[in-house]
């Protein structure tokens, strides 16, 4: 084969590797893109939240909803479901969680916001949803804190924000139908 051919092959192989790498780069890129544009409706920890605590702004409604993913057995609910708050002021609330089982368990909470374009205006100083894992002993209960401020710049047409928290069992197998040890345990006891 001539030199031209070999060069083409080399370039194409690089292209293949490059595109494979690109697909992995999509993972952080996706998060970066979401952060910059404020899409995806997830609120992350804010570094400059304090700057949003300025003059008291207008009153908006705040609703907290919760869900236990895949039947996660903990009791998990907002301490206060519905509030009226003022933009530009610090707001503190909690979520109640209890491990109702007789095993030690670790949970992780994921948050989501509606309307999604409110996300950029919600600054969270502290939230249990940032924690990698919430560990509770059997029977243990806890009040999980949220400290946040809604910026005064919140678009005027948004009068009500819903903050959703879904709690997951961190210890769940990443596949529930694989032939793991837990399956054998299931077979022998049933």
């Amino acid at each position, binding site marked *: 084969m001539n030199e031209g051919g070999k060069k083409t*092959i080399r370039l194409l192989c690089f292209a293949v590797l490059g*595109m494979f790498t690109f697909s992995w780069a999509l993972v952080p890129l996706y998060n970066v893109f979401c952060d910059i544009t404020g899409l995806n409706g997830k609120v992350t920890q804010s570094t400059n939240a304090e700057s949003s605590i300025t003059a008291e702004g207008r009153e908006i409604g705040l609703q907290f909803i919760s869900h236990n993913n895949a039947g996660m057995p903990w009791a998990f609910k907002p301490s206060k479901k519905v509030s009226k708050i003022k933009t530009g002021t610090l707001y503190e609330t909690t979520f109640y969680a209890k491990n109702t089982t007789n095993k030690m368990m670790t949970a992780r909470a994921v948050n989501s916001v509606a309307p999604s374009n409110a996300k950029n205006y919600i600054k969270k100083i502290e939230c249990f949803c940032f924690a990698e894992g919430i560990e509770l002993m059997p029977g243990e209960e806890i009040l999980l804190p949220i400290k946040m401020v809604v910026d005064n710049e919140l678009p005027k047409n948004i009068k009500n924000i819903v903050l959703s928290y879904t709690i997951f069992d961190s210890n769940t197998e990443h596949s529930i139908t694989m*032939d793991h040890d837990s399956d054998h345990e299931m077979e022998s006891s049933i």
Partner: protein
Amino acid sequence: MSAVIESHDHEHHHGPAKGITRWLYTTNHKDIGTLYLWFSFTMFLIGGAMAMVIRAELFQPGMQIVEPEFYNQMLTLHGLIMVFGAVMPAFVGLANWLVPMMVGAPDMALPRMNNLSFWILPIAFTVLLSSLFMEGGAPNFGWTFYAPLSTTYAPPSVTFFIFSVHIMGASSIMGSINVIVTIMNMRAPGMTLMKMPLFVWSWLITAYLLIAVMPVLAGAVTMMLMDIHFGTSFFNAAGGGDPVLFQHIFWFFGHPEVYIMILPAFGITSHIIETFSRKQLFGHTSMVWAMTSIAILSFVVWAHHMFTVGMPLAAELFFMWATMLIAVPTGVKVFNWVATMFKGSISYETPMLFSIAFVVLFTIGGFSGLMLAITPADFQYHDTYFVVAHFHYVLVPGSIFAIMAAVYFWIPKWTGNMYDERLGKLHFWLSFIGVNVTFFPQHWIGLAGMPRRVPDYALQFADWNMVSTVGAFLFGASQILFLFIVIKTVMGGKKATPEVWEGARGLEWTVESPPPYHTFTTPPKVSQ
């Protein structure tokens, strides 16, 4: 399939080996093309059998034939087999047979890699099909395998599914490298890029698309594998991941993939319409630009498969407009084909019948595609039978008809024998009627509210489902006729001339029918 029995004159000493080892070790592009085509036909019949199971269950409301779990395995495998086992290998087979001859090259650039590219496919599909017999059954999450249904909630066979997808991807990538190097580096002197026939152009563009997106699919399935077995959380919200990320990565591959499945069909159609209109294709340069534009645009429209996923307004608007835009170069192609026929001198042999049907029915699929592009309307179409109707129109009377047209058009060249024209026409009409009776009513039941990927449905969808099933069985049975026609032609028939068709243009029509085992060992002179 080439000069084994009939070789009167040159090249005795370069004839192929005998027996099964010929096919195992061949590095000859004609043999490998044959292998791909027979493999594709086999997979088409297997995927088709699964479609028959699906349509049989949908013949009437209620569960009659299979259980919902098995039904989901059928629909998943049907999709995977048709996309990766039937359509793509058929086009690769056609590329293998035709590209070297069309550019005046003696073979593909990397003949041994060519052999490997083919032979890993039967291995991949044996792995995939064997999953039907594994505990938990075959993959059951749709050919689009969204997480977490395909990760946390998948049957154990998902690991084998991932393995087989990796192998299929490797095959496509190697094949594409071969095609590109052959086209870019082995054209006969005098054949500039713009002198290349359109089938070659279509494959050059397709090969670049494959290089760009098959590695992304590989990334997606590797991430799945890691989520399932190595405790990562790419697509698992519990671990900080996002199921929607899977959809973005998958469709970044998935959308160019569907253009990979149609571009060679465009190339084929241009050759056939030109030949049987006895008139040079209208707008050759424009046709090249149209295919290039379609390929480039195909990279920026992926999220039109995800309009209901909760993307922000700005994103939805962008993807709506970009998707609508693809209609422009596609329309240009259709207009050029029609302009080729206009004031031509047309005859209606079987390849031409299939190609004309391609233009009309693919365009109908294109119209439903345009309707789907309109995001607020898509909220009513998404994941219903309207989508199923759309993609079956562009794939069956689209890609598959083009493949059949190509087989009828070039088989006299490959075998040296004319196919039986009456039987060919019969196959065409049965297929044409079958395909329309099967898929046209699916637009209606989708609009009326029937979701896709369901083994059972509410009573108002019963009548047209029954009609669709009847059409499906007609279409399925007609393919047995096709098998018969192909075998009959291989075994004998009226002898074909080198030119075969009056008005045929291109280097492949200057060699014998069947061609010598090695053609263009000295490059031809390219003029015109």
